[in-house]
């Protein structure tokens, strides 16, 4: 059974290090740095990122591996995924209005 200390909310107030992001996504630190260069990822510190990016980076990395994408395509996929996530959340907010 999980204890609470093992549970970690990936919320806007939390950060992950570049190494944690690499472990979580399977991307190398070099590849993550390239994503930063392409503007698909914005670090919040020297080598830290907002924890909210973890899910999208994992999904993009899966697509890169399975569809054999180059890094520029991975960067594009990642920025689209983040946009879709933001929009889907917005739609859910609007449609969850009571009554």
């Amino acid at each position: 059974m999980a204890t609470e200390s093992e549970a970690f909310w990936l919320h806007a107030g939390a950060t992950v290090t570049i190494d944690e992001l690499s472990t979580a996504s399977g991307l190398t630190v070099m590849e993550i740095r390239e994503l930063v260069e392409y503007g698909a990822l914005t670090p919040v510190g020297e080598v830290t990122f907002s924890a909210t990016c973890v899910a999208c980076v994992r999904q993009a990395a899966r697509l890169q591996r399975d569809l054999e994408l180059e890094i520029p395509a991975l960067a594009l996929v990642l920025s689209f995924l983040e946009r879709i996530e933001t929009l889907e959340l917005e739609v859910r907010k609007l449609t969850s209005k009571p009554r």
Partner: protein
Amino acid sequence: MKYKDYYAILGVQRGASADEIKKAYRKAAQKHHPDVSKEAGAEEKFKEVAEAYQTLKDPEKRAAYDQLGTGFREGEEFRPPPDWGERFHFRQGNGEAFSFDDLDLDLGDLFESLRGGARQAGRQRPIPGQDYEATIHLTLDEAHRGTEIDLAFEKPVKVRIPKGAADGQRLRLRGQGGKGINGGRDGDLYLNIVLHPHSLFRTSGHDLYLDLPLAPWEAALGATVEVPTLDGRVALKIPPDTAAGRKLRLARKGLAKPGGGEGDLYAVVQIVNPTVLGTRERSLFEELAKASRFDPRAHFAAEKSHGD
């Protein structure tokens, strides 16, 4: 063991070039990838084409597969030729040879074990456990207070969801994924939280919004009304001359946040008339209509008319 027709799965001829195989795979993968396709069964279909590609893209694995011949149909029970296992050195994760008499043996697992030259040296290499992902639905109360849920991957697990959830937020549970092999770390479990719509509250991050209906006289004269929150009812003071649409903030009455604190609750004022007027109510409204100089549409006059 069941035969799998990897060429048919990818839709290519047996003599297809490496390039044709790659193209066929990429086309099928783009269509069926579970992160892209929302169709039922997409994941199984994708796994099938990925397995076919993993075998056919590798010249050594493809040669071994081709040795099985063309005598079998998809899904047919079969046994490989007698010297086949010897020639290709199939080894399980623990280094032991496979037994081809094993009926549960999977052709894909077999080819998975043929990992180029690394297979000898890499046998004891630590392999991290698989990460798991799931979407779970919580009520606002469950999100606010935390809860326990049952999930089933390889085996059933009880997972404690700490308080602090918001709609669309993710929770990572370290080590709750698949078991690592040869000392590799255990995988993590990622949960995507979706909040059920509530009959009264809607959420924006950890803030809550509540529609607050007021009678015209409550809005005009001010009042103290009871409003529901996730922690029970509280008294809310309505200032006099409150307009419809005004947001009254109840600090820290929203959802619990990760790491402490709470969001706010906003009561959004709606002004509601009685649906049926009693005689006395009607006459009081009539009196008000005569006495009042209030013009709620004054701004219409200021607007330049376009029709004339």
